[in-house]
């Protein structure tokens, strides 16, 4: 697992993820997936989510579910980093379901937890 200072900064208001996703007709979600994958990979210290998968997940429901399955795996490491290991591990199933039916909400949840990395710096 990486040091906090090594994590690339990707801080956003979770509601902004939803708004920008709608305003840009989904284009922002591709960018968001790429940046979130970059942060989560760095947190885990291994390449769990590849960039091509992150890009395609932004426009393809089956891959989006896979993306949130991988994000759920990284959340455990993120939880350890921010001191909420048990809480975040329990959210992986929720992310998987939301990734299928309401992916912007899943993105908002992940963004909220990513923000906590920088809030506690």
């Amino acid at each position: 697992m990486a040091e906090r200072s090594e994590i690339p900064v990707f801080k956003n208001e979770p509601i902004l993820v939803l708004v920008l996703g709608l305003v840009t007709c989904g284009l922002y979600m591709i960018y968001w997936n790429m940046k979130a994958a970059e942060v989560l990979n760095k947190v885990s210290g291994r390449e769990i989510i590849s960039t091509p998968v992150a890009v395609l997940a932004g426009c393809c429901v089956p891959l989006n579910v896979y993306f949130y399955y991988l994000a759920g795996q990284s959340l455990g490491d993120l939880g350890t980093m921010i001191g909420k290991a048990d809480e975040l591990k329990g959210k992986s199933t929720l992310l998987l379901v939301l990734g299928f039916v309401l992916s912007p909400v899943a993105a908002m949840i992940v963004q909220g937890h990513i923000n906590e990395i920088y809030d506690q710096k």
Partner: protein
Amino acid sequence: MKSTTRSDSLPLDAGQARRSLLMATIGTVTIVASVLYAPWSQSGPVLCPLRLLTGLPCPGCGLTRSFCAMIHGDLQHAVTFHLLGPALFLAVIAGIPILFYQATTRRRISWWDRLLYSRRSGYLMAFALFAYHAVRLTMETLNGGLWRGMQASLVAKAWHTLVG
């Protein structure tokens, strides 16, 4: 990022093998779903959550129909539905046996692994999707298709029901 560097010579660990198997399964399910959904691909319900709610197309809108057309070897329609659909379809078809092979033998196919985990190919893909979607949105705005789509969306219908 020293720990994310992938070695071509090392076999896949349990996690990587599981992820390869999962991706191969998702690819297989996508192809089987395209075969099954093909008769309804043009008359069936809207599957994209963004389009269903707002009427706005997402960058992947048309991929399902494009895959269904490719199943029948109809390249012309596949390109019409989504310009990148045929290339993605071929990538999925090629990727399924490779991913199954990697998952079952735990032997890494280095060129595939480099392609799948390459940042450059990811950025190239993102650029292609951004450019294609921007052109498609501009064309739909100019021919009025975007406005018609928004009027038929769930949000617009709910608005008309509530406001009258």
